[in-house]
């Protein structure tokens, strides 16, 4: 999350937005984001259906596993990567999507 916050100014230039998803309750996330100084939205999804959709909810484990998903302007998933975010990969893709957007 810190890495995303650090890159917000680059996401802005590439006309991209970032959001996080967690199974924690809203109050927990509010406290946590304030403590961390995060300014982008973190969605609370205790039921976990987003995790089921994106394959981040492992059976018998109560939390989402870490995954990065990039969705383009037209709602198409363009990138899915498990584990810690690879910011170089993400920014390179966002730049490509931004250029695609300009061409359409």
């Amino acid at each position: 999350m810190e890495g995303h916050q650090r890159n917000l100014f680059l996401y802005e230039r590439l006309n991209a937005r970032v959001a996080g998803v967690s199974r924690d309750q809203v109050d927990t996330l509010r406290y946590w984001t304030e403590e961390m100084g995060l300014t982008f939205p973190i969605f609370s999804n205790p039921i976990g259906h987003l995790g089921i959709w994106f394959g981040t909810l492992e059976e018998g484990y109560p939390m989402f596993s870490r995954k990065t998903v990039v969705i383009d302007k037209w709602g198409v998933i363009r990138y899915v990567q498990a584990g810690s975010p690879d910011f170089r990969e993400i920014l390179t893709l966002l730049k490509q999507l931004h250029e695609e957007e300009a061409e359409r």
Partner: protein
Amino acid sequence: MNPALTRRFIFQPLIAVCAAFLFSACAQAATRVADPLAQMRQPDGVVVWQQEYRFVPPPLPWQLIDLDEDDYSIAFMKICSEGYPCQSTLAYAEEPFGYSLDFEERQTEFFKRFLWASRVTFAPPELRKVKIGGREGLEGITIGVEPVLKHKVRCKILFFRRGERVVAFYYTQWRSEEKPFDTADEADFDRFAESFDFLRPSFYESLFTQTP
């Protein structure tokens, strides 16, 4: 594109949304590596690191360490003969804690997170503008105290820029509360920082200037 990945998503506002699922990950324990600099050392003693950086490494018994975390790019550790907690660490960090591009704001964010897991209480840092390898920078020096184990740590952080992003050199020296700090290690850190240079533009500097 894989058709299985083609789905609609309801709350995505503009061109793209990165949704990051996380909550885990703490620093891994440091692992020693046996003389990994030998192949990178030039005849004049300068180390060329992955065609990205050049620097003069601190002398033995400083050891290159692998902290196995993305926030550190290069780090060295020196452990005293008397053992824990007597040790020093110096590092170049490509992604120091915090987010702001302004040095003053960044140091505030930085010290809120730095050594967070060690439960250290820092004194307000002494700040001064400095030149680091000819670049404008901000130096922050402070001492932190871990009140339960009765350890103390002297920290010196040098913030400067690579392109528009803030990068930093870190120095920490841990001692028991009653032991004095050793200024020789800090001098090694200063020499390391002063010798450090970049061999090419960073990924971030190249992002908006190069075509894919």
